[in-house]
Each structure stands twice: as structure tokens, then as C-alpha cells.
């Protein structure tokens, strides 16, 4: 059995409790004391006493600091304000940085584009999708130029196709081309063709080769005949060509030697 000793901590604990709202710095100790105050075992009491004794040693010379709630609150508010300020400053800095980058990008883009007046004309004209026939003479010239340009571009890259915009501008010294989403259109067309190919000739359709189809009759005749395309004429074309050339050369050589 451990003997109970009257603990000095009890009194300050109760004193703190009586005061009402204990100061923040001593809150922890008070709680500690409160918790330990309830159980009646003395084992826990000893280290607390020591702590208290140590703490008491420090504060023995002075009176414990009395912190009012108001001051503590004021400090807390200061703290919060400081944090808020710093966050705001960070945000503004970031915003400014982003703004500057945006402006830089816009400027770069502007440098890449055509001058403003031409762009305006293009957007107001809009894409016309009715291709007029090359009957009229003026437009015949235009059409020819467009075709020549298109042929030029076609020869460079056969896959890329450009969508033409109806001609704009008074002077006919250039042709404006606009790259529309021709790739999307091509992709859809390819998908459509693939769908038809798949549904007619794809897996699951009951298709057969022409040879088998035409040979069906031959199989049922009383005297069975060979298949319709029995000979594969495309077999060994290179070999046959080489043989022909060799034969010609051999004949010439033979003629020469026989003449001699």
C-alpha cells in the first residue's frame, strides 16, 4: 500500500479551478492536475509533485503571471491576422505572375498571326460551302489559281487536304486557304467505309472466292472438270522473265559462236 501524502498540487489545482477560466499557459498543468487529482493512487502523484516542485521552483520567486482572457484573445487575433496577411500576399504575387505570363503568350501569338485586317475579313466572310461552277470568267481565273495552288499542295503532301475559303479581298494576287478540320472529316469517311466493308465482307459474312464460286458447276458435272482458275498465271513472273531474258541472250551467243 502506498501511503497517501497530502499533495501540494491539489491546492493550486483547486485554486485554478475556482478561478474559473485558467490562463492558457497553465491550462495543461491544470488538466494534468485535475486528472491526477481524481484517482487516489499516490504513484502517479509523485512525479507530478516533482514537476510541480520544479515548476514551483521557478515561479517561487515570482508570482505566477496573470494573463487575462482579453490579452490572450488579442494575441490570438494578431496571430490569425498575420497568417491571413501572408496568405493574401502570396496569392497576389501568384496572380501577378500569371497575368504577366498570359500577356507574354498573347503577344507571342499575335506576332504569329496575320495582320488584323485580313483576319477580320476572313471571319466576316465566313466559310461558304456552295462551290460555284467555273462558268464565269472572273471566277474561272480564281478557280484555276485555287486549283493550281491545291495541286501544288497536293503534290507536296498527298494526305493533307485543305478546305478553301471563298476568295476575299479586292486584289487578286493571293488565295486565302483555311485549314478546317479536314482530318475529322476524313476520319469519319474512313469509318463509314470501314463499316460498309465490315458489314458486307467482314467476319461473319458468308463469302467465298471467285474461283470456288465459278468451280461449283464443274464439281457437279458427270465428268468432273478442273477449277475455273486452275492455273495461277501470276506465279513466278520474275522467274519467267529472267528465263526469257537468259534464253534470248543464250540464242544470240549461240548464233555468234555458230557463225564463227
Amino acid at each position, binding site marked *: 500500500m502506498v501511503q497517501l501524502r497530502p499533495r501540494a498540487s491539489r491546492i493550486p489545482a483547486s485554486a485554478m479551478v475556482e478561478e474559473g477560466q485558467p490562463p492558457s499557459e497553465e491550462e495543461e498543468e491544470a488538466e494534468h492536475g485535475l486528472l491526477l487529482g481524481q484517482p487516489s493512487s499516490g504513484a502517479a502523484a509523485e512525479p507530478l509533485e516533482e514537476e510541480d516542485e520544479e515548476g514551483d521552483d521557478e515561479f517561487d520567486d515570482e508570482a505566477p503571471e496573470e494573463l487575462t482572457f482579453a490579452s490572450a484573445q488579442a494575441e490570438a487575433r494578431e496571430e490569425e491576422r498575420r497568417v491571413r496577411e501572408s496568405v493574401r500576399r502570396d496569392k497576389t504575387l501568384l496572380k501577378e505572375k500569371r497575368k504577366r505570363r498570359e500577356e507574354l503568350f498573347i503577344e507571342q501569338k499575335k506576332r504569329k498571326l496575320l495582320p488584323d485586317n485580313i483576319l477580320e475579313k476572313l471571319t466576316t466572310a465566313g466559310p461558304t*460551302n*456552295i*462551290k*460555284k*461552277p467555273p462558268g464565269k470568267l472572273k471566277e*474561272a481565273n480564281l478557280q*484555276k489559281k485555287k*486549283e493550281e495552288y491545291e*495541286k501544288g499542295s*497536293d503534290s507536296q503532301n498527298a494526305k493533307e487536304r485543305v478546305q478553301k475559303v471563298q476568295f476575299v479581298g479586292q486584289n487578286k494576287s493571293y488565295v486565302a486557304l483555311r485549314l478546317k478540320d479536314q482530318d475529322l*472529316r476524313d476520319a*469519319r*469517311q474512313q*469509318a*463509314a*467505309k470501314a*463499316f460498309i466493308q465490315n*458489314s*458486307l*465482307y467482314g467476319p*461473319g*459474312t*458468308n*463469302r*467465298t*472466292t*471467285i474461283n*470456288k*464460286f*465459278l468451280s*461449283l458447276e464443274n*464439281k*457437279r458435272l458427270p465428268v468432273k472438270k478442273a477449277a*475455273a*482458275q486452275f492455273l495461277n498465271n501470276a506465279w513466278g513472273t520474275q522467274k519467267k522473265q529472267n528465263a526469257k531474258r537468259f534464253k534470248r541472250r543464250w540464242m544470240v551467243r549461240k548464233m555468234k559462236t555458230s557463225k564463227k
Partner: protein
Amino acid sequence: MGEFKVHRVRFFNYIPSGIRCVAYNNQSNRLAVSRTDGTVEIYNLSANYFQEKFFPGHESRATEALCWAKGQRLFSAGLNGEIIEYDLQALNIKYAVDAFGGPIWSMAVSPHGSQLLVGCEDGSVKLFQITPDKIQFERNFDRQKSRILSLSWHPSGTHVAAGSIDYISVFDVKSGSAVHKMLVDRQYMGVSKRKCIIWGVAFLSDGTVISVDSAGKVQFWDSATGTLVKNHLIANADVQSIAVSDQEDSFVVGTAEGTVFHFQLVSVTSNSSEKQWVRTKPFQHHTHDVRAVAHSPTALISGGTDTHLVIRPLMEKVEVKNYDAALRKITFPHRRLISCSKKRQLLLFQFTHHLELWRLGSTVATGKNGDTLPLSRDADHLLHLKTKGPENIICSCISPCGSWIAYSTTSRFFLYRLNYEHDNISLQRVSKMPAFLRSALQILFSEDSAKLFVASNQGSLHVIRLLEGSFKHLHTFQPQSGTVESMCLLAVSPDGNWLASSGTSAGVHVYNIKHLKLHCTVPSYNFPVTALAIAPNTNNLVIAHSDQQVFEYSIPDKQYTEWSRTIQKQGFHYLWLQRDTPITHISFHPKRPMHILLHDAYMFCIIDKSLPLPNDKTLLYNPLPPTNESDVIRRRTAHAFKISKIYKPLLFMDLLDERTLVAVERPLDDIIAQLPPPIKKKKFGT
């Protein structure tokens, strides 16, 4: 007649393209046929089924739908997403309107002819208004989940049936919303992994919707309740097309096996008023998929991947049971694709995207009648000329001396100069061709190869003088009055004075080239001209029409010749008039002015004007008389038409010199051997 050595040519690897869509116009009795290479051809069914016009194709224009609108306007739509209107007078494309829905799969004209409905890849059905000079987008209907593959208007114009993948929707035109959605079984009373594609729908006036799908079923739906009424399983493969007659008592469907079925509305018992649809006749005229069918008042028309166009008149609808009621199968082209240079024995073959130049082989052997002589030098493939660009070649020609080749596409005209040194040839292109030469319908060189005649699709005729590496435009004959009836044909006289051109409703015009003015006009005939030629020395113009009539007109005298009047009075032999295919080429013998050599796809004939004409009782197709027969019998049976059917099917036949003929054949088996795969047919015992 004389003895000839015949160059029998079979190395022209001509493959026609498959037929994709067929549209029949009732008012003018014309048929528009579109092929997989983008060509649209117009056949005149009342002019002996002659192909009178065609619009050359384009690589990107894969048409999926074709229809006639009010006022003889032809529209087509394809996988490039554009609706194209064709100008039948100027023979070019009026305009192309982008529907902005992706690839277009189907198109239908409203019964009144004023609205156009288009079914697109993204599932939208778009309504267009047909205005006098173009079409205008009106509105979209409700968008569906999958692509709209077939469309059909109700005869009153209030509802539209649209077939898609696995379901059919019925739309109300006024509101544009889908009234019913009928789900189609994937397989007849079974389950299948493959989606059921509704290839065709037809809307009848009593509210029945007929659908044909890829499971081989023909189904009848009631559009008021949206339920299935009747189900017919007719094939093991897809049923790909449907066409209903105007009276709505019969319709025709085409299957992927090549069979065409005729359904008719017959009464249940002989005196009851209740009727039902019964499958009456199967026709097997095709070997491959029948992708397009049409129903005219008297005939069933079908066309498919095997490139034949088959017109089957229905016996119960035909009034007069004569040869007109026979089956017509159009396989070979109705115009010339081969030109010949007689001096150098060269042949120029025209394909859709390239030209081939071949030199004929030669032989030194001789033999009797009917022998095959061995070649001492094989035929040589000299040149393979590919065209630039995606457009198809419209026409081509080689000059008689063999040093100029010219061909034309819709947007450009090409002229090449050929140089021959020893055994090599070199090609040089003449650049900067004038713009008015493009889209030429017919090109012809004069006999001395100094002049080039070009008939453009505007109707004008250009005369160009050819110089050593360049050309000079001499004159243009402006189009005369009269509508364009058919494609222009040209003929030039061997002495270079006269030029004849046909194609307008005004008749055949003859121009004087020396004085560059119109000389005379042959009176017009109500059938289009299929071949034209001017004889040497006598300058008689021989014209062959699509109803197998042959006229001879003397140009210096400006009137029909005596022989022509005699034969018109007597009339041609009935077997001559019953031939199926038109005469595509006429030529003459240089030393025998009484002979005319002409050919069609299945025979060639030498008309000897000095011999008596056959009447209906004599045998037209005289076999070669045996030599031991007496002279008297031979004289009795001899008549003017010497016909030989040894070489067929003939694409071209011409006289190279006095003793040599060249015959270009194209056996049907060689065409079939290069077609896409057909549906497998299971036969017992194989």
C-alpha cells in the same frame, strides 16, 4: 469480201465498276445509274436502253444515294457528306452542298418533289427545301443513336420511315419527332452476334412499312401501332435493296446472293377482296450482291457488284409481246474506249485513271481460213500513263500517225507528243493548254494529224492546229440551238475538209473545215446517234442510231444517198433490228468504196452496198458458205449484210490496212475473275 488477217487482242484489262444506286424517272423514262467509281450514267429506256449521257466520276465521290426530283433534277449524296446536283443540259455538276452531318447514307425526295430528306452518319435526319436554283437547309429531325441507312416518305408526305442499325424509326414530318421505334430481331427467331442492318425501307400509303435487312428478312410493320405484322425469311444473306411500284401492288427486293424477288399483292381467294403480299417470282440474273433495284411501270431493274444492269420487263405489264419484252442485260460500254493508230499499229486503251499504249504483234506466217498464226513478235506494252488528280478520264484519243496523245478530265486537258527512235518512245507534255478545252466530251485528230478537234461539254467545238511542239487555236464553232440529247460524237473526213458532230436535238451538224463554217445539218431523228463516220473519196456520212437504223448521207450533195433511201424504204431485217447492243464504231475500206464495216458487242458486219438487200424471209446470219457449194446457191443467198460472230464480245474492231483487221475482245469470264468475293453457295455434293 476478201481475206483478212485478224489481230485478236485480249490484253485490254477492262473492268467496269459495280453499280451502287439506280433511280428511275417515270416522266422521261430514264434511268440514272451510279457506279462505285463515282460515275453517274443516264440511260434512255425508250431509246433501246442506250446510255446517252454520263457524268465522269471522282475518287472522293462515292455515291450512296441517287434520286430524281421534280422537273428532271438529279441529286446524289455520298460518303463525303455532300449533296450534289447534276446539270443534265450542260453535262456537269451544278453545285455541291455540304450537309454537315458526316457521311450521308441515304436520301429521299418527298412525293411532291419539293423537299429532300437526307440520313447521315451521326444519326440525324436533315430536311432540305428544293428551290428552283439550289437546295436550302430547313431543319433537323430528332437525332437517333446510330447511322440512318435508309429513308422512305409516306406518299402523303406526312411521315417518314428511317431504317438504322437494329431498329426502324417513324418520324412525323411536321414536328420532326420520332413517333415510333420498331426494334428488329437480329436473326429470324434466334439470337445472333451480328447487328441487324436495315438496308432498305419502303412506306406504303396504307401505313405499312416494309423493311429489308441484313438477316435476310422482309418484314411488314404497321406504322400506326409500331408492331410487326408479317415476317418473310427469303435468303441466307443480306437483302440489300427494295423498290415499290407506283401503284403499290408490287415491289422488288434484291439479295446479296444475286437473286431478285418479286412480291405482289394478290387476293387471298379468287373472288375475295382481301389481299396479301405474296412472293411470286425469283430471278437469278446476277452472281454478286444486288445493291440497287428499281421498279418501273413495266419492268424490274436491278444492278449490283457484278456490274451488269439487268432490265426485266414483266410479262403481265407489257402490252405487246414482242422482242421488247425480252430481258436486257447491259454489260459493255456504249461508247468507244479504244483508239487506234493505223500507221504504227498502236492501240490506246482508256481506263478510269490511266491510259495504256500497246503495239500490236506481228507475224510472218500465212495460213488458210480459220488458222491461228504464230506471232513472231509479241504485243508490246509501250506506255502506262497515269492521270494526275482524283478525277476520272472522260475521253482520249491517239492520232493516226501515232505521235500525239490527248485526253481530258473534268478540270484539265492533256496533250502529249510521242517521239519514236528505233524501239524506244519518249513522251513530252505540251503545257499551258487553254482553259476552254477542259471537260471535253470527245477528242478527234484529223487524218494527217495536223488538226485536233475537241467537243466540249458546253456544246462548242474547238479546232486546234498542231505544230511541232505546240499548238495554235484556230477556231471555235459555237453551240447551235437545241437541247443536249446525248454525248457528242465526232467524225472527220479523211481528206480533212468536213467535220461532223452529233449530240444535240437539232441533228448532226456538218462543218466545212477549210472555210470554218457550218455546211449543213442532217435532219434530226428521234433516237440518239451511237456511231458516226465519213467515208473516204465519196464523203458519205454514215450514221448509226440506237434503234439499229443506219443512214448514209452525202455531204457534198446535202441529201441522203440512193442506197440509204432504198434501205429505208425496204426496212432492215427484223433480226438486225432486234440486236441488243448499239453499234459503236464504223470504218471503211480504202480500196472498196462499196463496203462499210461496223460492229457492236456481239457481231461485226461488212455491208456491201452493191449486193441486194435482205428481206425478212432471208437468213440474216449467213454462215460461211462451204467452197464445194455451187455458185448458183451462193449467189441466191448472198445479200448485203455479211455478219460474223466469231469474235465476241467485241469492244473495238477496225481495219488497219487492206488485209488486216484488229478485234479487241473482252471475255466475260475475265471480268468476273476480278470482281469482289460473292456469297458462298452450298450445293449438294460439293
